[in-house]
Structures are given as C-alpha cells and as structure tokens.
C-alpha cells in the first residue's frame, strides 16, 4: 500500500515538471490576452447599434461557446495552416504554441464577451443618460462612466473564466506543446510507471486551482459587497 502511494518519482522529476508548468503559464497568459482582447471586440460588435453587425457578433460568440476546446486545438493545429497556405500560397506550419494560443484564446473570447456584455448591461441606463445630459460624448461616456462600473461587476466573473482557461490550458499536450502533462506522459513512459506522476499531477492541479478559486471567491464577494 505504501508503495502504491509513493510519489517520490514526481518529486524526483520536479525540474522537468517545473519547466512544463512554465510552458503552461506561457500558453495561459498568451491565450488569456488574446481571449480578453477578442472578447472585448466581440462584445462591442455585439452591442453595436447596426443590426447586421450585432447579429454577426452574436453568431461569433455562439460559435465559440459551442466549440469543444479539444476540437479547436486539433483544428487550429492541423487545418488552419493549410487554409492559410491556400490563401497566401506560402506553405507554413504553426508552432504548437501558436496553435494552442489561437485555439484557446478564440474559444475563451466567446465566454469573455458574454461576461463583458453582462457587466456593461448591468450599468443603469440612467448613468448613461446623466452623462449625456452633462454634455459627454458617447465615447467619453463609455470610457469614463460605463466601463469603470462594468469592470467592477464583471471582475469576479472574468476571474473564474480565467481559471477555467487555466484548466483548459492543460490540454495543449495533445498537439505536442511541451507543457506539464506532456512531461508527465514522457516521464511515465520512460519510467514505465504511470501512477506516481499522474497522481502527483492531479493533486498539484487540485491544490493550485482550489487555492486560486478560493481566493477569487473571497475577492468576488468583497467587490460585490462594496458595489
């Protein structure tokens, strides 16, 4: 029994695993930035006064939210370079990190767009009207009145979406990004022992994400009470 729960192999390979975790962090940050930027753009397009544009924004959001992340990863890694090649006439391959960033960032942008929209629509209309009555332009009203208030209500939601993205970023080993799960698979095969590494990875992620979620929950309650 004690042999079964022996996690020393996980400790022995900590440097390799740490390097994998750094790659996870890189993919996470890159796709987070892409997701937030695209999400904000998609949200603004969706709220645009022109109906056709708004509908296109809505369709984009629905499409992102209905796409399984794994399918997106595989598609962006294997199909997207071909399509780019056909369009430009230059044969290219995506670095796995590029494919992973595109796939995870674009899928996440659908969820971020919804969080942004909820935050923006939660700002009372009266505030906008008051700002306009005071002579602010619509752009200025949005930047100075709507966005700061919206940002506050949507922060907890954006945080939990980001944790979701962190969880999804463990997937990228399927397109050979050398992240932590990739290293776990390599070492397990080399050592012919699957148990210690997979169990170690599961426990580590559980602790990491549990701590992050608890922090966000506490912070989230705090901001909500303030507002």
């Amino acid at each position, binding site marked *: 029994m004690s042999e079964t729960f022996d996690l020393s192999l996980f400790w022995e390979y900590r440097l390799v695993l740490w390097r994998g975790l750094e790659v996870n962090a890189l993919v996470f940050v890159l796709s987070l930035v892409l997701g937030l930027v695209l999400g904000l753009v998609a949200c603004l397009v969706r709220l645009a006064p022109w109906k056709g544009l708004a509908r296109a924004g809505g369709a984009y959001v629905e499409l992102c939210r209905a796409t399984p992340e794994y399918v997106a990863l595989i*598609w962006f890694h294997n199909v997207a370079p071909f399509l780019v090649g056909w369009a430009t006439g230059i044969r290219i391959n995506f670095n796995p990190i590029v494919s992973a960033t595109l796939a995870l960032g674009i899928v996440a942008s659908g969820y971020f767009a919804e969080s942004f929209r909820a935050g923006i629509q939660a700002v009372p209309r009266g505030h906008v009207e008051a700002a306009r009555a005071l002579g602010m332009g619509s752009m200025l009203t949005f930047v100075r009145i709507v966005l700061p208030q919206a940002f506050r209500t949507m922060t907890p939601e954006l945080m939990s979406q980001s944790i979701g993205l962190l969880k999804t970023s463990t997937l990228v080993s399927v397109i050979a990004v050398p992240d932590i799960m990739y290293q776990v698979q390599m070492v397990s095969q080399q050592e012919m022992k699957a148990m210690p590494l997979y169990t170690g990875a599961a426990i580590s992620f559980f602790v990491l994400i549990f701590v992050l979620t608890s922090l966000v929950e506490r912070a989230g309650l705090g901001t909500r009470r303030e507002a």
Partner: protein
Amino acid sequence: MDFLTRAIIANIPNLLAGIRVTTEICLISFAVAAAAGFVVCLLRLYGGPLRWLARLWIDFGRNTPIFVQLMWVSYAWIDLIGWPKDFFTAAWIALALQSSGYLAETFRAGIEGVDRGQVEAARSLGMGGVTAFRRIVLPQALLAMAPSFVNQFVVVVKCSTLVSVVTVPDLMYQALRLASIWNDPVEILSLVALLYIVFILAIASGLKRACDRLRASFA
C-alpha cells in the same frame, strides 16, 4: 465527385460508430454524475461527520482539469485500486467525476432554494421527513435546477471529445484516424468540428426550450 468526398462517404459507417460511442459516453457519464452528485449532495447536507468527505469530492471534481482527471483515472487508477480495466470505463468515470462535483452543488442550491415554510407546512400536515423531502422539496428543487443540468450536459458533451486521447473510439477518434490514414486533415477535421458545433448548438437550444416549457407548465 472527388476522391475525398467519396472517401468520406465510404467511411460514414465509421463516423456513425464514432457518434454512437460519443453518445454512450455522454449519457452514461451524465447519468452516473447525476446519481453520484445527488448522493454527495445529501452527504454534504445531512452527512454529519462525513460532510468533509463530500466537500473534498466536490472540490476535487470542480477544481481539477478534466484532462488531468482523464489521464489520472485512465493510467493511475489501475495501480492505485486495480480498476477500471478498460479505457471506455475510465473515460466515463473521469467525466462523471468532474460533473458529479458540479451537479452536487447544483442539487444543493436547488434544495436550499426551496422555501423552509414548504417543509414546515408539509411536516405540520403530518408528512414524515423523508416523504416531505421526496414529495415537496425534491420536485420543486429539480424544476429550479433544470437549466444548470442542461449546461452541465453540454459541458459533458464538449469534454467527451477528449476521450479519444485514451483511444476510446468516439467521433473525434474516428476523425483523427481517417485524417492520418489519408494524410489530409482539412476536410475530415473541418467536417467533424462542424458536426460537433451543430450537435452542441442543437442540444443546448433544444434542451433549453424543453426546460422553459417544463417550467412554464408549472409556474
């Protein structure tokens, strides 16, 4: 008709077999997750000294990435507890493990959302605790929980694509196999991606409508 179109048509039986496996995985893991989630929720609410176990289960299910769980159940459980013996079982266990954590919390929110006065009224009419729970609390709670169930089912369908990583022959597995045999991923992977998106949109909107109708018929 070009070669690829014919090749795809020739492989429709494979794709249908994949869809079948995907459907099985989704239904089994969701049913198990709902049952386990209900038990865990009861343990969490009324378990007394065993509450911490329910909390650990819920937190572990919710806070571990599905891919990590899938690999863990598939490759580590056999050494830890000598089960499951095949990857199909491992796949639905992993999916159910994750969803049971979310569904347990859904059950809890639903049960706690039922007004206390309802229970008191039932008790004062002479119903026992279990009868009151079964006849008064549960039906109202289930109605309130329906939308969360739909969301979680969609999550299960999306996560089910991952089981191909542990060689369970679902739709994604069949697509990847054909892509590698033909050495041409463009059409088949795009087709399957489209299939998944259409499935998921259809399931989400269909179930949501059914849910709204159900709620409207009682409200």
